[in-house]
């Protein structure tokens, strides 16, 4: 008898509506009780797991799991000529790939709108947060610099890829070791010393937090793919450790009042603390193992 | 509520403007009690206890209680009972597919012509123009046209004869042309004798004695859209003097 009561407590009316036939009704019946179909509270994030340095051939890498959503980030450093506008700076080229593997909604071929919008978002966040000072990537002013290709690949799409991408990117950048480059004075050719590597300095620990608005009023954090398609608006807030906002990205959808936005921002700052702690912990354990 | 809406008749309203039903009204003891129901025409809709505008345009009123928004539009959205000029694009089995300028093609059964039977099929070819009215027109179903009225008569509908010119104007102009006592129509009547078929979908077909006259009428109608009554009459007079 006790088993039955346990079963019924979190599922009050939801058993009456069918998930496949009426997904929106199904979700509503849960949200009415301030919980979600996967047992989370409204502002709870899914379990985040992080693996740093998973790809040995890359200069830096990280694998992030946010519930089922899986993003792997590999960083490849190449030598390049700096741009004319910024001779004393290197540059970072992020790219988000959503292959058909990760979800049935993506087709093979050139990147779709969602992938391109995500790439642009990551690029904007890197630029506005200055997570890495691009001056650090300069080797020889006006002649040689590092370019970091950050490839973010989604392996399993279950919503909220932006959060996962930002965590993966930050962790991978923290893991990046660049070889030392000296310039031969006689031939003026660069010489790469693969033995001696240096760590990239992370200036800002940026973390993003995504939210969805259900039925124009209910705010939920860290949406799954199903929740994303059923909701009426999305919002992503990126903050750093000094509680400065790097991005408040809301690409349309239903309107949001200032108070709700404040709520999201304060949730995002606590999320920032959690993730920064997680990254530090994993980075520490990786170092210990080496 | 009724009076608040009525006060704004003739004003330009924008999407998002709303009227609330709550407004208390004085009940007159002498006047007969009228029903407070408001009938929403195009551009207005009910949202809970409010009346919301969802198209931009001028608020219009028709006694006793019909309100609608008179808006400018170019793309036609079918409505039941409206007559349109369509182009037959395909014959498939028992039905013709008719393009009327909307989001999908309408179907027109060969049996819905006057006097048509299973044996006696109407002579309709791909590319022909038809004047027909909507029997079914709603957002969830394929629109269906018929070329007979409810008593089985053609009533002016059917396939067009040879000659004539088809052109497109805005839906606003079409509505003005079809309005009772339309001043554009009466101005035009004084100009040349002509045959004029006006479809609610913004298509107009004209035929008159010579090709030149047909072209003049077509050009006049297309330019009449953005003119004031004065300008139009001036232009019509000029044409008349030039023609005779």
């Amino acid at each position: 008898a006790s088993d039955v009561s346990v079963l019924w407590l979190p599922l009050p009316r939801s058993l009456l509506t069918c998930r496949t036939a009426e997904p929106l009704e199904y979700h509503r019946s849960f949200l009415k009780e301030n919980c979600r179909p996967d047992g989370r509270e409204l502002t709870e994030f899914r379990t985040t797991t992080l693996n740093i340095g998973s790809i040995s051939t890359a200069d830096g890498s990280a694998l992030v799991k946010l519930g089922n959503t899986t993003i792997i980030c590999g960083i490849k450093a190449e030598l390049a000529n700096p741009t004319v506008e910024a001779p004393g700076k290197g540059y970072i080229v992020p790219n988000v790939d959503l292959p058909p593997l990760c979800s049935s909604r993506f087709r093979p071929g050139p990147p779709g709108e969602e992938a391109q919008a995500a790439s642009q978002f990551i690029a904007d966040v890197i630029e506005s947060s200055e997570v890495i000072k691009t001056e650090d990537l300069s080797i020889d002013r006006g002649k040689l610099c590092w370019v970091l290709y950050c490839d973010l690949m989604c392996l399993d799409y279950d919503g909220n890829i932006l959060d996962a991408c930002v965590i993966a990117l930050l962790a991978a950048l923290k893991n990046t070791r660049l070889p030392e480059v000296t310039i031969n004075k006689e031939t003026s050719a660069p010489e790469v010393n693969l033995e001696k590597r240096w760590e990239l300095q992370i200036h800002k620990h940026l973390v993003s937090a995504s939210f969805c608005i259900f039925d124009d009023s209910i705010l939920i954090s860290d949406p799954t793919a199903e929740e994303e398609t059923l909701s009426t608006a999305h919002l992503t807030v990126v903050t750093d450790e000094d509680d400065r906002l790097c991005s408040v990205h809301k690409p349309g959808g239903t309107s949001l009042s200032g108070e709700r936005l404040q709520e999201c921002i304060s949730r995002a700052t606590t999320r920032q603390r959690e993730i920064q702690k997680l990254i530090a912990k994993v980075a520490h354990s990786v170092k210990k193992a080496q | 509520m009724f009076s608040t809406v009525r006060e704004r008749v003739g004003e330009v309203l924008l999407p998002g403007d709303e009227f609330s039903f709550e407004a208390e009204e004085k009940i007159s003891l002498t006047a007969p009690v009228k029903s407070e129901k408001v009938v929403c025409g195009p551009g207005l809709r009910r949202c809970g206890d409010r009346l919301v505008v969802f198209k931009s345009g001028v608020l219009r009123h028709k006694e006793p209680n019909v309100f609608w928004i008179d808006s400018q539009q170019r793309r036609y959205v079918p409505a039941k009972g409206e007559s349109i000029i369509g182009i037959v694009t395909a014959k498939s089995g028992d039905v013709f597919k008719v393009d009327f300028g909307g989001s999908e093609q309408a179907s027109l059964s060969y049996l819905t012509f006057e006097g048509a039977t299973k044996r006696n099929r109407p002579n309709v070819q791909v590319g022909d123009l038809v004047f027909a009215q909507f029997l079914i027109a709603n957002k969830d179903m394929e629109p269906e046209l018929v070329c007979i009225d409810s008593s089985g008569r053609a009533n002016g509908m059917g396939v067009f004869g040879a000659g004539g010119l088809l052109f497109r104007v805005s839906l606003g102009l079409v509505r003005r042309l079809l309005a009772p006592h339309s001043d554009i129509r009466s101005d035009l009547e004084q100009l040349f004798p002509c045959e004029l078929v006006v479809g609610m979908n913004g298509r107009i077909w004209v035929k008159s004695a010579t090709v030149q006259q047909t072209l003049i009428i077509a050009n006049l109608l297309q330019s009449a859209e953005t003119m004031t009554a004065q300008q139009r009459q001036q232009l019509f007079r000029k044409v008349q003097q030039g023609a005779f």
Partner: protein
Amino acid sequence: MTPSACDKSAFSTMEVCGSLTVSLREFGCEQSLLSRPDGSASFVQGDTSVMAGVYGPAEVKVSKEIYDRATLEVLVQPKVGLPSVRERSQEQCVRETCEASLLLTLHPRSSLTLILQVLHDDGSLLSCCLNAACMALMDAGLPMSCLFCGVTCAISTDGQIITDPTAAQEKESRALMTFAIDSAKHSVLMSSTKGSFSVHEVSGLMTGKKECAPFQTNKTVNAKPKRPDVTNRLH
């Protein structure tokens, strides 16, 4: 379009804003200036100029058909070159804003196409795109639950807020934010930011925005029943 119609609609609605607290550049709008699309508009903010055209509700490709609402496609064409990743992200912002204000369920299984052609970019491009899009949708007579407007603010290095910045002001600024605000509730439909800023700065903008009602002007020009210019001012 006949020549006579062109004469009449030539920027007859240019508005000059001379407020001291909020400085918006001169802006203007013209509707139904193209003959082929079902709705068109051009919007000018200072030297930034965007032309918009809407087609629809039209037939939809089977692969893009949605059974209970219309499919909205937004294309942003840059002044030179081919659309790139930047335009894709702008398209996403404009599309989702339009989706929120349009009543797409009234035209199921049809397609709406909105094309935004950038004529000149002198800052505040995204907000100009949003304004042009709204005007074009209105001109097409599509069912909308509310209107919206776009506004861009820059925070300069000394913490001052500049509304409707030029390209030069944008470049010097520390942070740049674009909001879309709806006309019914005056709340935020879209937000897109660049650069870092504090919580206070953004909340100041949000609350400030609420205090000011949208500034709307309706102009009736000849037979055209509507010619409104809509903008929100930020204090």
